[in-house]
């Protein structure tokens, strides 16, 4: 149980982030979500979280902007007292073949999907260091290991997340903070619905379990890593991918 703990989930209003927020709430955590722009979705998610009898709130934050991240996290600490769990999940895609990828498509994805993780991690590290405990969970992706046609930016960011995870895990380990990466394979979300049919079928052939995952499959793994049961696990990347990556 995560009773009375505060979990911050970035990109928590929709998709996998929403499933993670609900899953952590189901075991008693109070939830703060960061959302980029869809206020209505954020409010709906907050309502669903409240049904678990925990506290919940949302902040509109562009995670690639240091000032926005810092001021939101300061406010959370001021009003809620602590942040025990950070789930870095906010991400965007701007797919294009390398030869056609524009500089701003590269920058936007790196800024949100990699720099955003760094900024949120740094901002919560201070209160976590002081309380000598914490869980940082980074949502990666199988494409950070395998690469993916049309996703040079996204795959580079997700590979970067693994390096960030391991480094942060080493630096914060002596203070009781664990840092892990949960790397989904193919999960049914709005984001993966955008991929074309041919790619879908291509990936399906490579999934030993022969079906795409659900957001809740990822959320369950996050819930485990966030719990005290996972206290001896740090610096790891756990693949939630139906066996896709086992090679």
């Amino acid at each position, binding site marked *: 149980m995560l009773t009375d703990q505060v979990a911050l989930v970035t990109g928590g209003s929709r998709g996998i982030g929403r499933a993670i927020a609900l899953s952590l709430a189901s075991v008693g955590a109070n939830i703060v979500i960061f959302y980029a722009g869809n206020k209505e979705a954020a409010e709906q998610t907050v309502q669903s979280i409240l049904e678990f009898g925990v506290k919940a709130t949302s902040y509109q934050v562009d995670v690639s902007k240091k000032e926005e991240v810092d001021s939101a996290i300061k406010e959370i600490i001021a009003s809620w007292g602590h942040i025990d769990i950070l789930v870095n999940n906010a991400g965007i895609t701007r797919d294009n073949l390398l030869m056609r990828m524009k500089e701003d498509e590269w920058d936007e994805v790196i800024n949100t999907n990699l720099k955003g993780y760094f900024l949120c991690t740094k901002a919560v590290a*201070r209160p976590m*260091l*002081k309380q000598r405990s914490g869980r940082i969970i980074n949502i990666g992706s199988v494409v950070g290991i395998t690469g993916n046609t049309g996703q040079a930016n996204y795959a580079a960011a997700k590979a970067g997340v693994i390096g960030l995870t391991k480094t942060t895990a080493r*630096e914060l380990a*002596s*203070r009781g903070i664990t840092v892990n990466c949960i790397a989904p394979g193919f999960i049914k979300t709005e984001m993966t619905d955008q991929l074309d049919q041919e790619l879908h079928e291509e990936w399906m052939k490579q999934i030993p379990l022969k079906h795409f995952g659900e957001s809740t499959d990822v959320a369950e793994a996050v819930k485990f890593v966030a719990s005290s049961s996972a206290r001896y696990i740090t610096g790891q990347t756990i693949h939630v991918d139906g066996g896709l990556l086992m090679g």
Partner: protein
Amino acid sequence: MADVLDRVKKIIVEHLDANEAEVTMQTNIKDDLGADSLDIVDLIMELEDEFDMEIAEDKTEEIATVGDIVNYINQHKS
């Protein structure tokens, strides 16, 4: 001055498991007290809270001794 030193000493004793008697203005935080880089980050955070001030990140590398901390605080506190 003495007040600042006492408060700094207290934090160092608490956070670095140091013996109060061995903490003087000349004590080197790394060499004499065995602090590693994360200990120093930790210490700076505690000092910032205690003295309600921000210690610039590039200044933390110039801090070697307890005296450096006390002087920094005296120079920068409002």
